[in-house]
């Protein structure tokens, strides 16, 4: 994005806030604070780019991912890098899939409704009001009538369906499962972005995960960040926050960061930590901050994201078109299911290398079985889920003995499914196989997979059991706030980014109230 005209602050300036990370959590609040006239500086570890710089080449698009090594263990070691974390001005929204269902009211009250899981300390209608604001601002495309929420309206008509979506619609129809066009944070028409440039209508190129070259897909560098810069925010790319300085009373006074190997510090009145579900807890654990609850790094969650693939007689070319153009919310509460919560289903278009990696890892394919499968790439199509993951004590992020290039200990993430996730996985697998059979797929394959980095700095009502309060403010340090995927108390079945953006605006409003 254009940064050459932006306002700049000196390190000696006392800015109102430093925001660490410019992804879904950092960007909206940066804009909100700047709009309110505050002096704000964002530190972003990754580089700044223009949308036109992106390339559909899957290997080269690896530049969008957070590639500093993380260690994975547990029963289901999580793939990071390309699977679930990004870097650069815009964070993971540079390569996210922009599939943006709204969180379901029941998912925020699992404990009250089922006795398991946890409740969110936020009212659903309050969250939805913020979500609607986000949807209007970024331009979400979706169906005129949303079957599971008839009052809902989307600002833009849906994007084109692709072959996977048509197959899923047919398979679901045969089984009596309701589907509709997916809500997508993609503009289906040219869209003059408030505070930014014209975003061109989606051209169905299918490479959202490699970065949208048309700015059709919402990413923070084409939406909230230009708005922030237009209102005087400074964004510093290539700046890795490594320390937080505090005064005698324990309040934050400055953020220490490294740019081109040189350490700097920015004085500030408050800090917003928005580094994502892995970097935020890693930094806090390393600095020994904000952890009187002992909850930092605990309850790491990843959505159950099982995929089912199959070969069709027709040529599917599933790389064409917006990748997840169909949704079903029917399994958000499945009848007679032996689990709490539920899952969303979506059609899948996946580029060959990403697909083959999942086939080779979770699908345990190799040899002719793998090459012959990929030779049929044009005939493959898939469907997948995003399913509830409950917080669990065994799943956590700790610091490893090894250090990274900055001398910070690497994160070690231990993750495995527990009974509820296993039950969701089994139910979803059966359902998806049935749908794919009904759609006419042969050689059906199940690819076990989990996605997203959720939890690790949960919000809650009490400082004994949570790291931040319901607005994202640390219980221990009153001018340290967290806003990113880490504050989720439970995963919700809905994909996370829309909720993160909404929470970001809400956190900003709370902060501004206190000013």
């Amino acid at each position: 994005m254009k940064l050459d005209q932006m306002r700049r602050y000196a390190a000696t300036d006392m800015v109102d806030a430093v925001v660490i990370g410019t992804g879904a959590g950092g960007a909206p609040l940066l804009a909100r604070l700047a709009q309110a006239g505050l002096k704000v500086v964002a530190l972003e570890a990754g580089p700044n780019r223009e949308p036109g710089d992106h390339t559909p080449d899957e290997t080269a698009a690896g530049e969008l991912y957070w590639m500093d090594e993380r260690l994975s263990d547990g029963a289901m070691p999580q793939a990071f890098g390309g699977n679930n974390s990004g870097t650069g001005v815009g964070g993971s929204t540079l390569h996210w899939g922009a599939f943006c269902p709204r969180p379901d009211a029941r998912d925020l009250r699992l404990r009250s409704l089922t006795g398991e899981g946890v409740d969110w300390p936020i009212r659903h209608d309050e969250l939805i009001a913020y979500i609607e604001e986000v949807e209007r601002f970024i331009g979400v495309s979706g169906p005129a009538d949303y079957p599971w929420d008839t009052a809902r309206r989307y600002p833009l008509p849906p994007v084109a369906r692709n072959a996977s979506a048509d197959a899923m619609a047919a398979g679901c129809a045969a089984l009596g499962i309701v589907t509709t066009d997916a809500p997508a944070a993609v503009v289906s028409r040219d869209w003059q972005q408030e505070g930014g440039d014209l975003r061109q209508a989606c051209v169905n190129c299918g490479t959202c995960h490699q970065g949208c070259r048309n700015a059709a897909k919402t990413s923070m560098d084409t939406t909230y960040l230009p708005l922030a810069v237009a209102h005087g925010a400074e964004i510093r790319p290539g700046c890795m926050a490594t320390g937080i300085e505090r005064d005698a009373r324990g309040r934050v006074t400055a953020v220490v960061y490294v740019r081109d190997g040189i350490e700097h510090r920015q004085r500030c009145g408050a800090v917003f930590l928005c580094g994502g579900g892995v970097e935020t807890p890693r930094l806090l654990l390393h600095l020994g901050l904000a952890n009187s609850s002992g909850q930092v790094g605990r309850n790491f969650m990843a959505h159950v994201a099982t995929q089912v693939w199959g070969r069709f007689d027709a040529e599917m070319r599933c790389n064409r078109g917006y990748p997840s153009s169909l949704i079903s919310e029917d399994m958000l509460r499945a009848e007679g299911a032996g689990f709490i919560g539920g899952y969303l289903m979506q059609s899948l278009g996946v580029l060959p290398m990403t697909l083959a990696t999942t086939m080779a890892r979770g699908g345990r394919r190799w040899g002719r079985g793998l090459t012959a499968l990929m030779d049929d790439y044009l005939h493959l199509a898939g469907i997948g889920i995003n399913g509830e993951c409950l917080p669990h004590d065994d799943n956590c992020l700790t610091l490893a003995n090894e250090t990274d290039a900055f001398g910070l200990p690497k994160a070690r993430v231990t993750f495995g499914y527990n009974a509820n996730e296993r039950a969701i996985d089994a139910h979803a697998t059966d359902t998806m196989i049935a749908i794919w059979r009904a759609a006419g797929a042969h050689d059906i394959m199940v690819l076990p997979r989990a996605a997203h980095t959720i939890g690790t700095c949960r919000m809650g009502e009490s400082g004994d059991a949570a790291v931040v309060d319901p607005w994202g403010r640390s219980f221990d340090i009153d001018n340290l706030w967290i806003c990113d995927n880490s504050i989720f108390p439970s995963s919700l079945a809905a994909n996370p980014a829309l909720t993160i953006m909404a929470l970001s605006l809400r956190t900003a409003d709370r902060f501004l109230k206190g000013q």
Partner: protein
Amino acid sequence: MVGGMKDAPVIVLLHALGASARSFDAVVDRLAGYACIAIDLPGFGNAVGDTDFTVEEMADHVAAIIRARIDGPWVIVGHSMGGKIATILAARSEHGALPGLAGVVLIAASPPSPEPIDDDRRAMMIGWAAKGPLTEDEATNFVSENIAAPLPDAVMAAAVVDVRRSDSAAWLAWLERGSREDWSGRIGVLHLPALIVAGSADGDLGEANQRRLNAPHYANADVAVIDGAAHLMPLEQPAAVADLIRQHVAIAVATRPTIPPHFARLIASDRVSARTRAILIDRARPDAVDYVPHVLSSGQLATLRALMARVIPQEEGAIDLAARIDARLHAGEGDGWRFADLPADADAYRAGLDTLDRAAGAGGFAGLDDERRDALLMRIEDGDCLVVTDATLSPAQMALWFEDVRADGVRIWLAHPATMARIGYDGIASGGDGWRKQGFAKTRADDPERWEPRATKERLR
């Protein structure tokens, strides 16, 4: 379109100053089975009357013929002056403009930099042509000066006729300008497999200058010397020249996973961004035949090659996945995470390969037949490979490492544009550099856009 043996490259031959296409007649006779196109360059042979004498124009002339007549892989052979044109075309091909080139053979070739010619000799040759076509004596003198032993009468006579019928303006254009043009910066270093042939009795374009002036432009070049030959090798020793060409074509075909021309044209088209095109062309560079590993020992590299042959079996024109994995480990390019139970990537590969060799028994993994290799890999996959003494990875670690190996192998395989062509994946062509990107107008099943290629496998059906 021309055609010879199925899938064999077409051999394109470019002659020397004062010669013509027919200077390759005896060579072509000995390349039976290959389709050969020997081209008369402007001003020579049957192309007298054509006035495109500059080096650039000569290259354009040849490129136009290749585009019109070849729809598959090709190899270029350039003799003397024709060698400089060949190298320029090779560079155009590596930069994506002229698809399908599989290898280069340079015979006593003029280099991309100014050709080293003795000043007096150049002045004499210019003097011959300055007054019009060369006389019989001048032409005979010219041919004789460039051979090590007398030619058969008929060959000698034809060579003299060719010199005499050359357009003197073309002759002068080369001596005064073309041979002096410096293309070395524009050519840079090419990666196509090249064979540089020198005559043991040649003068300024003999072995020493070939190594000094032509070899640095080819990262994958072999140099061969034909004994008892001077500068006009196709006339002097056609059998030796043909044998070398035949061998090099075999190597070029074997070392290069070829990008079929239809896919190369797609990469060159305006549906692909300049950045993406450069990435794909770079990645399509042939692997060095004698790759020296940085991270693995040569024994470990051999084991990894044997392993890759089972993990990602490739029929023809294999991509050296093992070498590419070693290069990646060397560059320290990880994928953002690793199994906590495995050591760092390079160490894991070294330990995994050593353990694999030990588990395979005395002859190592490469010593097993395919069936036994697969049987061992299946046990490793199940976390149940033999615990061997001195093994550095446990069976559980071997299972994790084998998962990494599968993912690394398939990713590098699919990254190659030849594999994209093979499976029919054209998502790299979803938008060029225009203000509006093309994307896809059609997204439904069984509804390809007109420009979309089919999978190579299906094209063959």
